[in-house]
């Protein structure tokens, strides 16, 4: 009945998902939808189940009830051996980077290529070098081990590994948490730049309000296990719901919004 004509299947469809760990209820009837090409953010306070939802979407956890569809396919397929083609269509960047500590940066980035393609070593090296250059890391960092990289560089390296197969869908878990403001800004810009170049859909979990204002096309705010707000940042900022209002209109929320308004005016 909606006015927009939905010809394409949504990239992600989460319907009526509930999650319980023993007695603790993490999600209660969460539903949301991500369409192709958007930057979709899942926001919420600490412990609101953002990361758990992300882990369920990428198939690391199974929800207690409800259904999650990725590219129109049930995400439970990811567990089986026939989940390989589905795995290849998305990349995940974990919060701490989750780089394999026994491998150099270049070897880390090359893992999906080595496992999923039959390319020869030279082409793999070329693709890896391209992705390392795209995320803005210097070429000589390729032979370094994760323990030799700074936090910001590790984040970029993790992004390079996540996008190495040109995924259609990119998941980011707290991409800017723990980074200084300058590096975090740089990371936001990098993400927009890469999205324009490679054209992927982004789903990110974050509570960085600046990132939300600057990047997110749509935001789902989780609170007490439910989706309490869903829409663009403008819509959410004017939402009357007390939970949403509190989240986006606290001192930090207002500051981020003012700063965003400032940059928009600057660009005009």
């Amino acid at each position: 009945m909606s006015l927009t004509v939905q010809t394409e299947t949504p990239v992600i469809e989460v319907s009526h998902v509930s999650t319980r760990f023993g007695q603790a209820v993490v999600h209660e009837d969460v539903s949301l939808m991500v369409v192709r090409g958007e930057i979709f953010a899942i926001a919420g306070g600490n412990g609101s189940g953002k990361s758990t939802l992300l882990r369920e979407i990428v198939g690391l956890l199974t929800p207690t009830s409800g259904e999650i569809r990725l590219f129109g396919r049930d995400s439970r397929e990811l567990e089986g051996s026939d989940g390989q083609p589905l795995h290849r269509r998305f990349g995940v960047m974990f919060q701490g980077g989750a780089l394999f500590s026994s491998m150099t940066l270049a070897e880390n980035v090359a893992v999906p290529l080595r496992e999923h393609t039959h390319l020869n070593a030279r082409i793999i090296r070329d693709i890896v070098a391209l992705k390392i250059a795209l995320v803005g890391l210097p070429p000589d960092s390729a032979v370094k081990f994760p323990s030799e990289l700074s936090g910001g560089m590790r984040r970029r390296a993790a992004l390079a590994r996540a996008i190495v197969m040109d995924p259609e869908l990119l998941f980011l878990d707290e991409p800017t948490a723990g980074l200084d403001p300058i590096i975090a800004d740089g990371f936001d810009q990098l993400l927009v730049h890469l999205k324009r170049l490679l054209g992927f859909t982004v789903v990110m979990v974050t509570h960085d309000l600046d990132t939300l204002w600057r990047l997110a096309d749509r935001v789902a705010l989780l609170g007490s296990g439910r989706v309490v707000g869903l829409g663009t940042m403008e819509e959410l900022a004017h939402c009357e719901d007390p939970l949403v209002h509190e989240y986006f209109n606290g001192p930090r929320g207002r500051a981020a919004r003012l700063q965003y308004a400032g940059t928009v005016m600057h660009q005009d």
Partner: protein
Amino acid sequence: MTLVQDRLLRCQGSWTMPDIAPVEQALRGSFWTQHGALVLETSDIHAFDTGGAVVLQRFLTEARRGGCEVTIQGLRSEYAQLLSLVASNWGAIATDPPVRPNRGVRLELWIRDRFADMVRALAFVGESVVASLRVFVAPSQVRWRTCLQSLRVDGVNALPITGLLTFLIGVVIAYQGAEQLRKFGTNIFIVDLVGISLLREIAPLIVAILVAGRSGSAYAAQIGTMKVTEELDAVKTFGLSPIDLLVLPRVVALIVAVPLLTAYADVLGVFGGMLIASNQLNVSFTAFLSRFDEAVALRHFLIGIGKAPFFAAIIALVGCYQGLQIRGGVDDVGRQTTISVVQSIFLVIIFDAICSILLSWWDL
């Protein structure tokens, strides 16, 4: 996927990372570019990603280097964008990858590392010895609670496995000996065989090896994980010393636990031998025990028990030291734990050998 038609190369199909390998193989070499000019007809490519773009760009670069002018026809605009993205980053891609230092430099680094490692180990032993003197000077400052906890985990909880293993070792020694002794009709000497070898050498060694595997490795992993998660740094910011807090209680606990475990292992090992003696050699329990009294001098027991605290100190110090050496990430924890076990068993056996030589000099 590619077929040629008089200097016109038709490219088709999917040029994406999962599918590009055969195309890349076909394009390699100078076969296509031997004619000075080549046209690539690319309108039939229906999927293209950066992998395809890298393959194409590599082909273009090599063709141009070989003096062949390649023109691309009909590449979709979004694909052309990807190609130009690759071309604009070609500088970074084509540069030779930096390499790790070569062998000579690595050898030098390795030797320096080993030397620095030795210095660090010595410093650590020194620090620990100084810290342990405090046990006598100011016993109230020792973390007795950690000590007792460690005593339970590394001592009491090790009783079943140590007991079982030394019992079996006693059985094995008696079994092997029984065969030979029966030939000479000297059945009663089974007591000397089992008693002396177990009390003096085998029981302390078996206990030490077990404790190194059970507790030494656990120390390295525990302390290493604490280091990785910055818990040790937190401890230091409170003005506390990790040696006092973590190392000393463990060393003290093991020094108490290992001799006790050894004595217990002695009993079970000899009991194992006794069972076999009565079963295979008709040496009754009473005969065994009365012979034990005269054949096995007290010094054998004391030498075995006397070595145990030193074994304990070696194992605890090596485990804690290797744990503290972890610098990188979780990957190091596993490696350093392995090193701690190998090193502590190695050092225990070396120490045992030195003891044997010294004691035989002194006719003990």
